[in-house]
């Protein structure tokens, strides 16, 4: 009879069982991120999922992890930020799919592009993405960057925090240990319990369910209305705490380029300064747009060109490629036509890389 049960004893037993389950989970530390419905039950995604905060799980959801490379494929990875990801655009209109739609081939191999970009620009995050993607046998990499990619900040690194132990090891292996704080602390035993990891586990479950939306209509983000870019900007000459006249590369992520080169090994990497909205109105002599003052961005262009040259990588400066009308809400976000122009601009260089 239920009334014979003593609630205090029941509660005590429940607490003990709960604690034991937590300890067991933390002790076993199962790689739950490997459980994925994608690429077997549901088709793999064409872009890394956003808001997942787990790079391993994101890759397991991506088509690249379920598509064995055949000898006729020339595999190209696209690394970058929300512009390359195609934020505000259906996946079919994003850069990777526009390039795939061009059906390029070189030296008898079909070029296939994989969109491995993620919103929030970060050269260091791209370093981790490249590290994770090397096992999928890429033939070359296209790395799209902007000044914000070199801003040392922790938010874009959220996806690697779930595997912070491996991330720290990688940083130390490539002499980037000074950034270990950005990838978050290595979780303690208690930090590995399902109670502590509830948020991540919840997001992993959501990712699997979200696969139904992906399968049903290739839906991988929620659209919302936005305000278009303004032609006028403020007269503020600073950028993220940096004031003119000198942009000190030592305070930025430029030291990631060398390790990126070592990590890529012999892979050809095309470095691109990505297109951005250039304001034409008030104060446009001071700033290119709401994000970048001209002095900082011009110095970044020179620094990036030099860094690419030092590594022997081809470089394209496409910052002024796209007309104002082909941007959406922020200076990096392109509309479908803008992404198409970008695809057409880089295709010849990629073809040369694929068939030198």
């Amino acid at each position, binding site marked *: 009879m*239920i*009334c*014979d*049960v*003593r*609630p205090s004893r*029941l*509660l005590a037993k429940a607490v003990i069982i709960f604690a034991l389950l937590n300890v067991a989970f933390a002790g076993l530390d199962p790689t739950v991120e490997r459980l994925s419905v994608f690429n077997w039950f549901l088709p793999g995604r064409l872009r890394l999922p956003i808001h997942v905060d787990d790079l391993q799980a994101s890759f397991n959801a991506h088509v690249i992890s379920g598509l064995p490379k055949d000898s006729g494929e020339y595999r190209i990875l696209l690394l970058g930020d929300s512009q390359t990801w195609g934020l505000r655009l*259906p996946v079919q209109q994003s850069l990777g799919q526009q390039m795939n739609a061009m059906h390029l081939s070189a030296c008898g191999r079909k070029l296939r592009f994989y969109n491995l970009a993620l919103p929030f620009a970060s050269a260091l995050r791209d370093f981790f993405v490249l590290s994770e993607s090397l096992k999928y046998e890429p033939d070359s990499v296209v790395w799209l960057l902007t000044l914000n990619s070199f801003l040392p900040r922790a938010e874009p690194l959220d996806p690697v925090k779930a595997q912070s132990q491996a991330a720290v090891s990688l940083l130390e292996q490539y002499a980037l240990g000074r950034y270990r704080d950005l990838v978050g602390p290595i979780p303690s035993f208690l930090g590995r319990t399902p109670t502590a990891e509830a948020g991540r586990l*919840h997001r992993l*479950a*959501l990712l699997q*369910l*979200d696969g*139904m*939306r992906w*399968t*049903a*209509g*290739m*839906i991988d983000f*929620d*659209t*919302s*209305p*936005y*305000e278009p870019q303004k032609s006028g900007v403020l007269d503020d000459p600073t950028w993220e705490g940096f004031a003119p006249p000198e942009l000190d590369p030592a305070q930025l992520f430029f030291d990631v380029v060398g390790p990126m080169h070592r990590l890529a090994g012999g892979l050809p990497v095309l470095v691109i300064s990505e297109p951005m909205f250039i304001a034409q109105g008030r104060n446009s002599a001071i700033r290119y747009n709401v994000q970048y003052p001209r002095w900082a961005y011009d110095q970044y262009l020179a620094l990036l060109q030099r860094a690419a040259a030092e590594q022997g990588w081809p470089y394209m400066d496409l910052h002024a490629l796209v007309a104002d009308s082909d941007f959406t809400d922020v200076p990096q976000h392109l509309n479908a036509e803008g992404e198409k122009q970008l695809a057409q601009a880089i295709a010849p260089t990629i073809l040369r890389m694929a068939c030198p």
Partner: protein
Amino acid sequence: MSVLQIAVLVVLAAAVGQLRNGRQLAMLGISALAVFWLQPDEPAPGLRFWLPVATLGIVVVAWILTASAELRSRRLDWGAALVLFTIVVVVELNHYFGADVLGMAGTPRVEMLAAVFVGIAALALVLARTRGMNRIWLIAGFVGILLLFIMLKTPFLENSIEHSLLRIPVPRAGAGGVIPFTWMGFSYVAFRLLHTIRDRLSGRLPPVTLGEYANYVVFFPAFTAGPIDRVERFGAELRTPLPLTNADWLEAGTRLFVGLFKKFVLADLLAVISISDPLVSQVKSAAWLWVFLYAYSFRIYLDFSGYTDIAIGMGRLMGIRLPENFAAPYLKPNVTQFWNSWHMSLTQWFRSYVFNPLSRALRSAERPLPVWLIILVVQISTMLLIGLWHGVTWGFAIWGLWHGLGLFVHNRWSNFTRSRMPAWTQAGRGQAAMHALGVFLTFNFVALGWLFFNLSSPELAWRTLLRLVGLA
């Protein structure tokens, strides 16, 4: 309510349940605080404070209206009045001490609040001095609350109040992060108040003190999502000191656990794949649309019934048995039984104050309508009003009509088939098969109805419905 808010309120409820004395006042204090705490951020900062004050003020005025003369002056009520006054003043004093109690550091200056207190006191005095006009005041109160409810539920009128009366700027098109105007709990508060005023007018309202009345209207477990109890039942529960038994603890714990799991695990997961405008516009396959429609159907049930479980569990911790709101509605073999087991406290309210009086009026008319027409009129009117209770929009109205017609068709069908059904359908496997068929049809009828409830326009809902059934 967030998990944190629920956890805090559960602990408080368990503590109140252990009190030997002062349980009512403690409950009232927590409920009044919860009215402030659960009020979400508003587009105009002052509203975060004034809306809860308005809720409590309306409750006090409604009690003055509905209470008998001798109850109004009972000493016991001064305790409840003092609790309400103290809670409002404590929250208000944030302004002077720079504190951030309940996230309300920016409360208005005390002069404004004093003016409100004086206003309520003056109104109470007027009501007391004009006892002969009590019926007029009651009708005015009823109409006033109803009008306020209608204004808040009508998007056009609500926008007018927001932007013209409250001077909240109109958000620019496409601007993100706009905080919606929300008067937390008012839908339920209004229906509890209307019930008491209506019963007072008809002489059926039992005597209730201010403490009992205010507890009934803003009882914190049921404040945001019901159930809508009846004051006489709730008052009796309050007055009966109930030492908690093992069974109570177990029941409370089980309901809380089940409710939290339903709401924060199942419903929140299903939210990702619930049918919505963007999904409908981007998904081409009807089969997937069915999947997303089913996901929404289960999500809305799990979300709402989860909250009810939590409310019932919390109430039980304090020795209060709140009424059930759901009884496995998706397992019912017809739409009539569905509505006897879905949001039962709301349907009970409408049965008492719309369905039954309207039926009686039509049947006792000098030239009564045919029975089938009375059933049609009454069921459609009741369900239309239930639809509009959720919001005065075409979508909710059509959802109400959909169910009204469903109830009418079922009524006529069961009347027609009562003596015509073959014997094999009355027992054994035949009966089970008919039951299963009924459950299947009812569930799908209800699920299709959710299109009008959830999608932004009836046109989109109709087009989606046609796609689902293969006609578009």
